[in-house]
């Protein structure tokens, strides 16, 4: 491999990872936008999404792969959307006016509950993912691109365009944007703030679910622990793009994926998992507004 | 003698908006100065710039009579250590602490017990602890909270929380006291009591800068009144002169009177 080929290869890998991070990061950023909560359990919802897709995939046989994939995605989205809605309803809404420390502790508790529930149901060991798509690969000038990567890119792009349309062009999107500006004013104007917040949780969770499915298909296995680390990386991506900023989350995810892919390729894969943390810590210390964001990270 | 507090051409800009626009103001030792003006005129912003809560875009703040010292650039706690205490427009008492503890916090700048003293409970630490508690009890009585020292601050009625905040500010034995709308939300009886309380503070020789909307509170106690409107000082003088100033009436009523 020439250096250029190596670089392009790492670029392709990083972009794949980044697309998955971006899908999860959107949930962090949307929820933070409306309720200023770092939803710690969001990583677990992503993980639940992966398990949901796995379960659906194992249940269906004999259909073409793209149909199975679509059903898996829809199933995981529906389940996680409901789960996101339920966590907001049961755990976060009752304490919305309490000090923020309480909300964050609740979120951590929720993360533990989801993680351990999944562990009870599916076991503590890695679960192998069935093949969601055929193992097709193409060679372009020495760079290998797999169907896996194409599926990840395509799905992520589709969902992000859809989300952008929803947020910018629909009544729901307008209400969401308004709520993220000023909850109290929206309530006075008759916007059903509670419903908007719940929908935001559901929507973010559904996107994370697809991220989970793609993650499982990409790595071939899933473990109940995966939500924590991947969730943190996705959160890093959200901060990278400026928390609360939806296009920022997309850009942040891709940038983080690229950095990680290139870092693992050129530096050391042993320290791979530290990159995200180091980036995160440096970013919060020196540029808490992120690359595109304008929100200041000082809400106590 | 130079003034105790001197604000020179203080400017605070948020984006394109001037919250303060070259405001100059001085407060003499022992004086009570009222700061009035419509909502959003920049009064609280001025307090924030003086107490180090915000850093002004431009301008200077000097404090001290013998050796005046610039305050801009100092942190809030450093300014408090130099003898400026304040209250807040929307009450900020320490909710989970008793009334007594709230006031004892105010003695922080006047006490010295550190980690070692606290861990070994040295006689010095014990003495200081007693001194702070006595002082706090005295101040609670002074503001009319005698007998409520063990009440949780959050459990006190609104009017008493305002007084608790004043007691906390007094505990640091400040040279200058900044009161940010102390009468807001009080009923007429409480307002009258507040005027009396401020009168007693004046009688003790305390220098006070007070933001207040209620003319019946600010006029009788102020030696001098300054008026802010859209971040500019539009008038300054005796309470009577200011009240009759057409510019002030215009600012409040929004109609030109000339």
């Amino acid at each position, binding site marked *: 491999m020439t250096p250029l080929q190596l670089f392009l290869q790492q670029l392709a890998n990083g972009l794949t990872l980044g697309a998955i991070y971006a899908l999860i990061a959107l949930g962090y950023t949307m929820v933070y936008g409306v309720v*200023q*909560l*770092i939803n710690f359990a969001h990583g677990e919802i992503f993980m639940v999404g992966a398990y949901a897709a796995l379960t659906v995939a194992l249940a269906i046989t004999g259909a073409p792969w793209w149909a199975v994939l679509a059903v898996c995605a829809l199933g995981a989205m529906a389940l996680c959307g409901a789960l996101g809605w339920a966590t907001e309803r049961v*755990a976060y809404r009752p*304490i919305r006016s*309490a*000090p*923020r*420390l309480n909300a*964050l*502790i*609740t979120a*951590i*508790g929720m993360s*533990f509950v989801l*993680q*351990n529930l999944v*562990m009870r149901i599916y076991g503590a060991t890695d679960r192998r993912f069935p093949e969601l798509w055929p193992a097709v690969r193409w060679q372009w000038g020495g760079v290998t691109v797999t169907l896996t990567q194409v599926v990840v890119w395509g799905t992520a792009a589709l969902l992000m365009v859809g989300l952008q349309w929803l947020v910018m062009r629909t009544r729901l999107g307008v209400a969401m944007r308004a709520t993220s500006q000023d909850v109290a004013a929206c309530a006075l104007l008759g916007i059903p703030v509670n419903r908007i917040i719940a929908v935001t949780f559901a929507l973010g969770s559904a996107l994370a679910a697809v991220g989970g499915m793609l993650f499982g298909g990409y790595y071939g296995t899933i473990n109940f622990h995966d939500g924590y680390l991947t969730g*943190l990386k996705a959160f890093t991506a959200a*901060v990278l793009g400026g928390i609360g900023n939806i296009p920022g989350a997309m850009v942040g995810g891709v940038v983080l994926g690229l950095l990680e892919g290139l870092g693992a390729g050129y530096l050391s894969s042993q*320290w791979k998992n*530290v990159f995200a*943390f180091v980036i*995160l*810590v440096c970013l*919060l*210390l020196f540029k*808490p507004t992120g690359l595109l964001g304008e929100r200041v*990270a000082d*809400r*106590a | 003698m130079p003034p105790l507090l001197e604000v020179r051409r203080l400017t605070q800009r948020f984006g394109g908006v001037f919250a303060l626009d070259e405001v100059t103001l001085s407060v003499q030792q022992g004086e009570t100065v009222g700061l009035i003006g419509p909502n959003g005129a920049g009064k609280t912003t001025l307090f924030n710039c003086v*107490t180090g809560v915000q850093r002004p875009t431009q301008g200077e703040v000097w404090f001290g009579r013998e050796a005046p010292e610039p305050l801009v650039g100092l*942190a*809030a*706690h450093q300014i*408090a250590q130099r003898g400026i*205490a*304040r209250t807040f427009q929307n009450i*900020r*008492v320490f*909710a*989970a*602490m008793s009334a007594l*503890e709230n006031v004892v*916090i*105010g003695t*922080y*700048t006047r006490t010295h*017990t550190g*980690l070692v003293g*606290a*861990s070994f409970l040295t006689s010095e*630490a014990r003495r200081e*602890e007693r001194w*702070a508690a006595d002082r706090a009890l005295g101040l609670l009585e002074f503001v009319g909270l005698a007998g409520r020292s063990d009440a*949780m601050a*959050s*459990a006190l009625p609104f009017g008493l929380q305002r007084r608790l905040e004043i007691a*906390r500010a007094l505990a*640091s034995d400040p040279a200058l006291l900044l009161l940010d709308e102390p009468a807001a939300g009080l009923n007429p009886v409480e307002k009258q009591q507040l005027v009396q309380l401020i009168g007693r503070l004046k009688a003790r020789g305390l220098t006070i800068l007070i933001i207040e909307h209620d003319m019946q509170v600010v006029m009788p106690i102020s030696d001098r009144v300054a008026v802010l409107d859209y971040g500019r000082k539009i008038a300054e003088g005796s309470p009577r002169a200011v009240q009759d100033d057409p510019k002030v009436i215009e600012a409040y009523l929004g109609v030109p009177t000339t």
Partner: protein
Amino acid sequence: MAALPLVYPHPYHLDVLTTSLLYALLALGLNLIVGLTGVLHLGYAAFFAIGAYTYGLLNLRAGWPFWPSLVPAAAVAGLFGVGIGLPALRVRGDYLAIVTLGFGEIVRIAFTNLERWTGGPNGLLGIDHPRLWWPGHGIFDFGVASAPYYYLVCAAVILAAALCVRLSRSRIGRAWVAIREDELAAACAGIPVLQLKLLAQGCGGAIAGLAGAVFAAKQGTITPDSFDFILSVMVLAMVVLGGLGSVRGAIVGALVLGSLPELLRGFDQYRMLAFGLAMIVIMRLRPQGLFGRSSHASAA
């Protein structure tokens, strides 16, 4: 309670109790940071790890015995707390929680990867147990028995609790609580907020460092796995259950959650689930914990 080993010398139960008391020591330290000062710290296990590795390395590389190693173990962990606090505490609110979490992970991954010094994933082996000269008996080696460690940890908890009670009733402790309640009002009352937060991190870190040294001496072997995020969250759950800011609460919280696996014998695998649920339920129903002062309910 101190004489328990004489009346009830069941070694296994004594061991569980000793472990719970070690948690209590950690909870006391974390309570200074989270409970009193209101800084949500999610990387507390790092201080524990630093204390353990400090003793382990001093013992294995320089032949230091246990007792004099306690001083550097506490000092290094405390200084580390101040050192990371210096940049990190500039970040506020939820973001600080994430930064501390990042630091915690970086420390753990660093201990795993710096194989030349730390033995990597296999950790440090063969650390000396404490030795004590006992009048009339000569030198007594703690060895692998349970009772001596029980006495040691008991003494440490009593000392630390006494220290915490004194601190919390002092000028310093009051200033910490004032910062927790209202940072701006505290600063305007003349409290140097950053300095006091650093002090809290230093004290809390030192207590964890001490606990780490005891842990290393008791186990004889330490691996990076013992100091993961789950430990940080467990200790946090203990502090929350007991009531933020309450010394008694921190100890009771640690004893309850620490001996939970024994109380729920046979339901061991549900322990983490119970931790998570406990955090959610407490935040919803009794945010002040078992012994905390009710505060925000009316102010928020």
